[in-house]
């Protein structure tokens, strides 16, 4: 028998393992969007993704100006790889990009994390990566609930309408 009953998503568990501006923002936009839809949301930051929840770095994330074929000059011409490698270029491009995002109403990372937890989303850091980068809970955003193992993360992913998303 065919059934047309909808089975909406109930929970998403999103993993962020990269610390580029675009990777962290993809994670935050997806997480915030899920929270706004009333979907239970867990966020797990690991490896270089920790940059996105580390107080010192989270509002100064960079986008890669080398090895990024999608990078364009203002005006649309391809961005020369040689130029991207010059000192200060990545920093300048990244700050331009953050400015553009700000003009579109996208919040800085610290505020974005607050928006997610305000709606009931939960943010975790990966224990192995925290140990590896010699960080402590104090180095991380106050919005981070806990530092947990991957096993504990999987326990949070229970339920048959749960999806794990790796950004």
């Amino acid at each position, binding site marked *: 028998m065919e059934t047309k009953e909808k089975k909406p998503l109930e929970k998403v568990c999103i993993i962020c393992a990269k610390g580029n501006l675009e990777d962290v923002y993809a994670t935050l936009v997806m997480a915030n969007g899920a929270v706004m839809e009333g979907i239970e949301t867990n966020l797990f930051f690991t490896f270089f993704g920790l940059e996105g929840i580390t107080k010192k770095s989270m509002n100064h994330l960079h986008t890669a100006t080398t090895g990024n074929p999608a990078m364009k000059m203002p005006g649309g011409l391809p961005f020369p790889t040689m130029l991207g490698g010059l000192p200060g270029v990545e920093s300048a491009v990244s700050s331009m990009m953050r400015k553009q995002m700000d003009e579109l109403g*996208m919040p800085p990372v610290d505020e974005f994390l*607050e928006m997610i937890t305000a709606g009931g989303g939960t943010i975790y850091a990966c224990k192995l990566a925290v140990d590896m980068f010699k960080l402590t809970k104090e180095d991380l955003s106050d919005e981070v609930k806990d530092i947990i193992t991957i096993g504990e993360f999987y326990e949070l992913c229970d339920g048959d309408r749960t999806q794990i998303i790796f950004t």
Partner: protein
Amino acid sequence: MALKTIAGVEVKVTEDGYLEDMTQWNPEIAKEIAKELGIELTDKHFEVLNYLRDRTIAKEALTIRSVGKSGIVDIKQLYELFPKGPLKFSSKIAGIPKPTSCI
């Protein structure tokens, strides 16, 4: 588009139940839509709804971030007023179009 009678008024609604014409809205309609969503409206709710309507008339794109900076509620309070749909449910109750923002 469909016609629906809400609080004794026949209004045009979209497939998702948003009012087609925000001028057909009145507080009674708001209360009835809210009830369907399991929300009992308070004065605070109406403050938010009026803010959303004003901003929509001013043709501004709405985000939970902008509502959070409105001085009426912060984002946490917005979630408390409209659980599981801070922008979607509030827009629906305010009689304005479905939000198109991602933030």
